[in-house]
């Protein structure tokens, strides 16, 4: 229950807060707690445990340090500059909580423990992608989404931990390092790292 409450609060912080440093802390809390929930399923085989350890190092050590360093060196990256006001962000949090509560009612998902929690983490990741304008927020959103998928995998199919952990590790690797490499390349032309600048490209 304590873990669920902490994830709930940290998830809300991801969406509501605007400081990159505090959002990175909230991200570490969520990912750390997801790792605690996922750990028992990974102890069955050494290969799974190795993937799990690699994922934890990437998510809990490498990615936060990279994000933190990036924000420290680039003043523009210290605020996530939300695209919507605080009241709307609070409504987004409530909507995410409400939607997550509905997931266990989907036929076939009711018997999965922590289904609502996994859905909450996935939805928080998606919400972070759209509520903030700073490109770093998108990296954080993708990492949270990946953690939610890991949790969903572990609680819904605990017999398939290799697939889940390998997928999660690869996802984190791709998102963090390609993402930061691209952000670094773009920062000279787009010093505010603002998603709005991408609108010159019309999909």
């Amino acid at each position, binding site marked *: 229950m304590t873990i669920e409450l902490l994830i709930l609060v940290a998830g809300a912080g991801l969406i509501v807060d605007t400081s990159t440093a505090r959002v990175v802390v909230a991200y570490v809390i969520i990912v750390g707690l997801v790792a605690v929930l996922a750990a028992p399923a990974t102890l069955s085989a050494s290969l799974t445990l190795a993937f799990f350890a690699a994922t934890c190092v990437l998510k809990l050590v490498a990615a936060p340090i990279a994000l933190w360093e990036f924000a420290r060196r680039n003043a523009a990256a210290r605020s996530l500059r939300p695209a919507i006001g605080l009241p709307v962000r609070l409504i987004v949090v409530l909507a995410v909580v409400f939607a997550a509560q509905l997931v266990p009612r989907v036929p076939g998902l009711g018997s999965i423990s922590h289904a609502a929690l996994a859905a909450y983490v996935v939805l928080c990741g*998606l919400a972070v992608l759209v509520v903030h304008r700073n490109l770093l927020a998108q990296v954080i959103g993708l990492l949270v989404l990946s953690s939610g998928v890991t949790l969903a995998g572990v609680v*819904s199919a605990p017999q398939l931990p290799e697939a889940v952990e390998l997928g999660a590790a*690869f996802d984190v690797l791709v998102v963090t390092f390609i993402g930061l490499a*691209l952000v670094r390349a773009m920062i000279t032309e787009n010093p505010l790292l603002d998603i709005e600048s991408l609108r010159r490209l019309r999909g």
Partner: protein
Amino acid sequence: MTTVLVVIAPLAAALLTMLFRPLDVRRIARIVLAVAAAALPLSLVGRADWLSLLFAGIVSVIGFLATVFSTGMYSVDWGRGRAMWTRKSVYFVLLGTFWSAMLLVVLATNFGALWFGIAATTLATAFLVGFSGDVSALEAAWKYLVLCSVGIGLALLGIVLLGRVSLELGLDPAHALEWSAIAQHHLTKAAPPAALATAIMLIGFATKAGLVPMHAWLPDAHSKAPAPISALLSGVLVSCSLYAIVRTLSVAETLGAGDTFRQLLLAFGVASIVVAGALMLVQRDLKRLLAYSTVEHAGIVALALGFGGPLGLTAALLHLVGHAFAKSAAFFAAGLVQSASGSTALSALNGQWNRGLPGRFLLGALVALGGLPPFALFVSELLVVAAGIAAHQWLALGMAALGVMLAFAALARAGIAIESGDAARESGVRLGEQPSGMSIGAAAAALVCAAALAVVPWTGALR
């Protein structure tokens, strides 16, 4: 073991090429090793299933043509003496990684490996899209990375839910994600989360295939990448993503969720054809026009799969193969035109027919993409219509016909500009280098394949 060798061969070839120091020797080695990598999937005949072999063939042939085209096109760029790690060699290593990842997608026997291949394509192509270093290319790469990462994240979520369904059906965990193992179950009623799992997988793979409304990354990424990479992205990567959807459809049907899945495919297909057709009319850049055309053709494939039945599947597969070659030819030709005239603006196309082979190839490719004879897309679109009539999907068929007409009008406008007038001489467009014979050969080969495939339905090979 053989499959592993086939998959890693293109990457290994690109790395091995770097051992050859003189640039001329390196170019020859690159072509020879690419031939070997492209021929290796033949060793799987009789071991892999026909669908995997078909797509491995597409990946290998177009991967090889892209390598030849790049070798010819970039012969004068980036040459830096005898260095091993030139910018050009990095380009070819990323190209080899992309090619290998796509082979993994089509030769995988389970959704876990397939997902890994799809995710690995992002690793290579995000850098290739932004390879020019131009800020708009970097931003296109960012958009591609973010949207496709969400897509592949959702696909993984769907796959783990599918794994749960498989385990509940009593499958061994080691085979829970294998489509051949799941196919042994024939359910009359949907296994509870099967429809949800396969629908989430569809949304994930459809993002990578560029189906509307998850298409926003595609026109930017495909138009900003170098021409041979655009050819691979549009011609092959989209085909690989649609291949993943075909595999998911077969599993959805086995698990009793086929109807829901096909309805979703119809919705994505119609939306893609109509939206892309309308947006093609307002494009001013040739590569963006071709990128939107990819969205339209991906929509036609989704529509054919949504119609269902053997006719729908045959139409979808023929359309996929025909489009892969026609679109590759179009992007190769666009690269040649860009190289010769220094622009991809549609206004610069005027009179390209009179300026040599690039304009003529481009017109041929546009005719192919417009679904005119003698190209394979003419036959496949007829089959799609027949599948729609057989399925009594009149509304979807009517809306799709409208979208296809809009797309045809946009392609016809570009084609008429190429064929008529000589405004390019007067528009102040810079004349660039003349394209090499190797690049012209690759474009010609892709176009010939797009035409030759039209005879496939009459050979009985798809029955």
